[in-house]
Structures are given as structure tokens and as C-alpha cells.
């Protein structure tokens, strides 16, 4: 086991999948000689050549639409969207085409593709380099939506995503790219299955549900709370869609209190679905209101530092929410 960063784990996953299956290729803006603006594809162009690590025109619709076509032909594209904020020009191809192709052809055509995009704030990116976009896709049957929170999962889930016969939206918490480090087996291949959420900290008093960067903070907040005698369970949702109701409800059965955390805007965010699931199927287990802690309902994360900090959920805010809920 060696300790590597999130972005290195992602790079390794693509490297290994490119080596394993020559149908796999990468397409996106600046993924070639530049190695990606976050260096996620660094060295891959040199290793696999221009055709398998392909600079696209500056057009997200092209990246995804061509990806869908290549997948129909029998390739396994990994489409990189430079920032999640720039995925909207491709929205039609994702929602009308990739997600519905299998169903609408009654199983004739599959679209095995991955759409990778760095998401999230706290990096000084302002309104258009900080967005969380997962909730637009966790409502679209036919898609899978995955968000890893640590290098081990990032690598294992991305490898599973590449092998999945369905279109997988793979959102990467960009603030964690270099910040979050973790152990990853060195000489041993592994994958992490798409689907199950994971209890990453056992506890009795309440459960915090989170993903991506917020999961990282949730673990830190749980440690703080532990010092104050609050025993917090933490669940890393990891695969947001389809939702893992079982793991969620099992944890609520145990702790009877739920706090859902994401950095995306509150209203209509993914947390609403988790809360609704609990309110519908875990109602009898509940000892307290289902709480959500999320970004405020303003258009996006502002640039200027004080305003950014005001927007962002962080360890302190989570710890406060834990205290409140524990005291209920």
C-alpha cells in the first residue's frame, strides 16, 4: 500500500483501463499534451498516443455526443468535462440520448461510457468553477451517478465505471484532488462496485450522510463530536444513483437520527431524495426531524474569499449541526 492523492488515483485508474482494454479512449479539452488542466491525464498521451487520449474541440456537446456514437460503435469512451459547470451544453446528449438509448431501443443498443467532471467549491473558482451538478443527474433513470470521497474508492469506482455497460456520471471533488490522500494497493488490481454506499464510521447517536469533499469533513466533524461524547455514524453515499436505500435505512434504524450534508444548494439537492427516502421508509425509526445541511440557495459559490467561506459547508458547520441534532 502506498499513499497517493485523489487525482493520482484517478490517473492510475485510467492508465490501467487504457492498458487493459484497447476499446477505451479518453476525449476532452486539453487532455492530450497538456495532461488535463488538473493533470488527471498526465502522461497518458505520451503512453497511449493521440488517438486514445484525444483533445476535443472546445465543445462539450461534441465530447459527449461523439462519445455516445463511439460507444454505439463498440468503443468505451471516457469523456472529460473540464469543469462540471461546463456540462450543460452536453445536457441534451446526456439526458435525451445516453440515458435513454438502452431503454428506447428495448435493449438493442448500450452506451458504455464514463463522463468525468471535477465539481465543487472552496477553490476560489467563483460562480462557474465551483458548481455541484449531481442533482441534475440523480433524477435520470438510465444513468448512474458516482462521487468518490477518497483515493481508494476513486480508483476502484472509476475502473468499475469504465467497465460498466451503462453511462456513468463520475464527479470528482476537485478540492480533494491533492488535499485528500489515502492508501491504494500497489501491485494488486481491484475495483469497487458501483451501487453500495459505505458506513465509514460506526456510531450510535446519529448518522451523517455525505459524499465527496463533504464526507471528508463529516469524518472530521464526527471526531470533534466524539470528543464531546456524541457517537456519530458516517455513511459515504458514493453511488448516488441508483440510490442505496438499504444502507441508508439500516443506519437510520440503528441511530434514529439523520443529518444529510452536501455542498450543492439545499433546495432540490440530492439531500432531498435521501431525506424523502428516510421520511417514507424509515419513519418509524426516526427520533428527530431529518436534517439537511447544504449550500445556501444562491446561484453558485461567489469568488471573493469571505463570500466563498459563507457559502461553503465545512467541518465546523457540520459539527454544529451534529450538536444540534444530537441535542434534539
Amino acid at each position, binding site marked *: 500500500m502506498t499513499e497517493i492523492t485523489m487525482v493520482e488515483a484517478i490517473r492510475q485508474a485510467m492508465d490501467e483501463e487504457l492498458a487493459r482494454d484497447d476499446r477505451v*479512449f479518453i476525449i476532452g479539452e486539453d487532455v492530450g499534451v497538456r495532461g488535463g488542466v488538473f493533470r488527471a491525464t498526465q502522461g497518458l498521451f505520451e503512453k497511449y498516443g493521440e*488517438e486514445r487520449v484525444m483533445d*476535443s*474541440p472546445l*465543445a462539450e*456537446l*461534441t465530447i*459527449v*455526443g*461523439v*462519445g*455516445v*456514437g*463511439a*460507444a*454505439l*460503435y*463498440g*468503443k468505451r*469512451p471516457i469523456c472529460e468535462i473540464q469543469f462540471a459547470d461546463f456540462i450543460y451544453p452536453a445536457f*441534451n*446528449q446526456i439526458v*435525451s*440520448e445516453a440515458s*435513454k*438509448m*438502452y*431503454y*428506447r*431501443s*428495448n*435493449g*438493442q*443498443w*448500450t452506451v*458504455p461510457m464514463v463522463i468525468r467532471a471535477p465539481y465543487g467549491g472552496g477553490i476560489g473558482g467563483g460562480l462557474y468553477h465551483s458548481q455541484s451538478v449531481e442533482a441534475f443527474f440523480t433524477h435520470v*433513470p*438510465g444513468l*448512474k451517478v458516482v462521487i468518490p470521497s477518497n483515493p481508494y474508492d476513486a480508483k476502484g469506482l472509476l475502473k468499475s465505471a469504465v467497465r460498466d*455497460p*451503462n453511462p456513468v456520471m463520475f464527479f470528482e471533488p476537485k478540492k480533494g484532488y491533492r488535499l485528500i490522500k489515502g492508501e491504494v494497493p500497489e501491485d494488486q488490481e481491484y475495483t469497487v462496485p458501483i451501487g453500495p454506499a459505505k458506513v465509514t464510521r460506526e456510531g450510535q447517536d446519529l448518522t451523517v450522510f455525505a459524499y465527496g469533499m463533504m464526507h471528508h469533513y463529516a469524518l472530521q466533524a464526527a471526531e470533534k463530536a466524539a470528543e464531546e461524547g456524541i457517537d456519530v455514524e458516517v455513511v459515504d453515499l458514493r453511488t448516488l444513483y441508483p440510490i442505496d436505500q438499504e444502507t441508508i435505512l439500516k443506519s437510520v434504524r440503528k441511530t434514529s437520527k439523520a443529518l444529510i450534508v452536501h455542498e450543492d444548494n439545499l433546495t432540490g439537492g440530492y439531500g432531498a431524495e435521501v431525506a424523502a427516502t428516510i421520511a417514507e421508509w424509515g419513519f418509524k425509526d426516526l427520533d428527530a426531524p431529518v436534517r439537511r445541511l447544504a449550500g445556501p440557495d444562491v446561484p453558485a459559490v461567489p469568488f471573493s474569499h469571505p463570500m466563498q467561506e459563507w457559502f461553503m459547508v465545512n467541518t465546523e458547520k457540520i459539527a454544529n449541526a451534529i450538536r444540534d441534532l444530537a441535542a434534539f
Partner: protein
Amino acid sequence: MPLSNEKKKEMFWTMLLSRRLDERAWVLHRQGKIAFHISGIGQEAAQVGAVYAIEKGKDWLVPYYRDLSMLIAMGMSPTDFVMSLMGKAQEPSSGARQMPSHFSLRQANIVSHSAPVATQSPHASGIGLGIKMDGKDEVVLTTIGEGSTSQGEWYEAVNFAAIHQLPVVFLVENNRYAISVPQEKQMAVSSAADKACGLGLPGIEVDGTQMFEVYDAVKEAVDNARKGDGPSVIEAKMYRLTPHSSDDDDRSYRTREEVEHFKKEDPIIVMKEQLIEQGLMTEEEYKTLEEKAKKSVDDAVEEATRAPYPKGEEAATPVYAEEENHD
């Protein structure tokens, strides 16, 4: 190699069969037996001419909803089509999930398309990219209406194919209207073929009522693509002889005189007369074809009528694939 006389007759037969099938769909709609029809009437010459330029079982077709005669040429049976009109479980495109005329035929390399226009165009480029990557000599033919070339999606698809010199032929079926909106409100050029010059690939205009001219133009583009000389845009000019769909009433936006005028240039009439004139078909033979077409359509309606509807709960699947569908 020029088209043999046999081929030419076969092509005319395909036009004719599609036309009679298409007309029957309108009748079924008037009879209240089907809920919806969108028609290819007036576009058969261009469609059949174009699709005969690609190789069945090898090349790829990424069609749009008016391409009934292309589908017939590629092996969709009249019964298949009537089943889709009726929403029968066994219709091959979508198991009756999609509206009729939203085609797919996996075994014939005909890709499923949706209703949002122009979404198919980038797929064609993506397939072309796959072909180029594998060093195959396959070609992709994709079609679209002239109005739909207003979508950025079409521009991006053609641009990508031009940059990478992909083996794709972009055929624009210009029937002069997008529902009610005439070409002048879609573009400031006189033909979608003119758009090609701005993207760095050849743009060819052809008379869409002349089946063999369309064939020649598309064949040349296909040959170029196959050789590695890159994509082309071809616009075939024609006229939509029916309303946009069974939901449309075209009297609000075009005069009856205009429609009557173009009925005289109906490609079925044009091509029939051409074949007879050139001695490739006699009036007698034509009558036999008409009878054969009628019988084929009658049989299709009968068979499709007998076929079962899907059960409601069949709609629950297939949302996710367990395995990819490739060989």
C-alpha cells in the same frame, strides 16, 4: 460501377412499396386504428437513392423519422412498420416504447434515434471516429431535415467529422419546411450544402426527386469517405407532400396551389416515367408492382393487427444493461 437495370428496378420497387405503406398509415389514422403517423411521402427518391449508395450489412445508417423507405431498403418489413404504428410489442425499433418512425435495427447497423432533432448527428461522427480508429473501411450515412441543421448539434457534428476527416456522409433532406417554418427563417444561405464551406468539407446540392442523381452524388461521397478522404454534406431538395404529421394541418402555412404544384413533381411519378421512358419498366410491369405492393401492405396490416400489445408492466425494463451488447 453504374447501377444495373435490376438494381434500378429494385430501387423503384422500394420507393413504391414505401409509398403505399406510408399512404396506408394515413388511412389507418383516419380510421382511428392508429394514433400517430409521420410521413416520408415525397422524399422516397432521395432516400432510396442515398441508401443504395451504402453497403448493407457493413456500413452504418443513422436516420431520422422520415426515412421509412431507407428502412424498407435495409430490411425492415412492412409488418414491422405497421406494428410500430399500432404500438405492438414485437415492433423491432423499440418494443413500442417510442413513437412510430423512430427507427432502430441493430442487426442492420441502423442506430436508434430519438425525437429531439439533430441529436443523431454527433452519433454519426462518433461512429465514424470508431471506424477510423479501427482502420475499417466502413462508412456512416446520416440524415436530417433542413430545419434541424439550425441546431448547434448538427454544426458540431459536422465540424468534428471535418477536423478528423471521418467517413461520414451528412445528408440533408430539404423538404422546404420545418413544420410550418420555411427555409428562409432557418438560414441565410440557399442550401444547407452551402454550410459545408464554412466547415471545410465538400457541400453538394442535388435534386431529391431524381433518385439516380442522388445515388450518384451520395455514392461519390461514400467512396471518398471509404478511401479516407473525409466527410461530405449533401443536400437533396424535395417537397413534403403531406402535412408534417397526422397532428398537423398545413393549410395555415401553405397554399393548396403550392402543394398541387409539387404534386406534379411527385418522385413516384417522376421516377416511374423515367423508368418507362428509358425502357427499364413497362406499364404492365408497373401495374404488377402496384398489385404486389398493395398485397404486401394488406398482409402487413393484417399480420400487425393480429400481433399482441405489450403488457403494461413490460415497460419497467430494460433501464440498465447488465452487459454491454457488443460482439
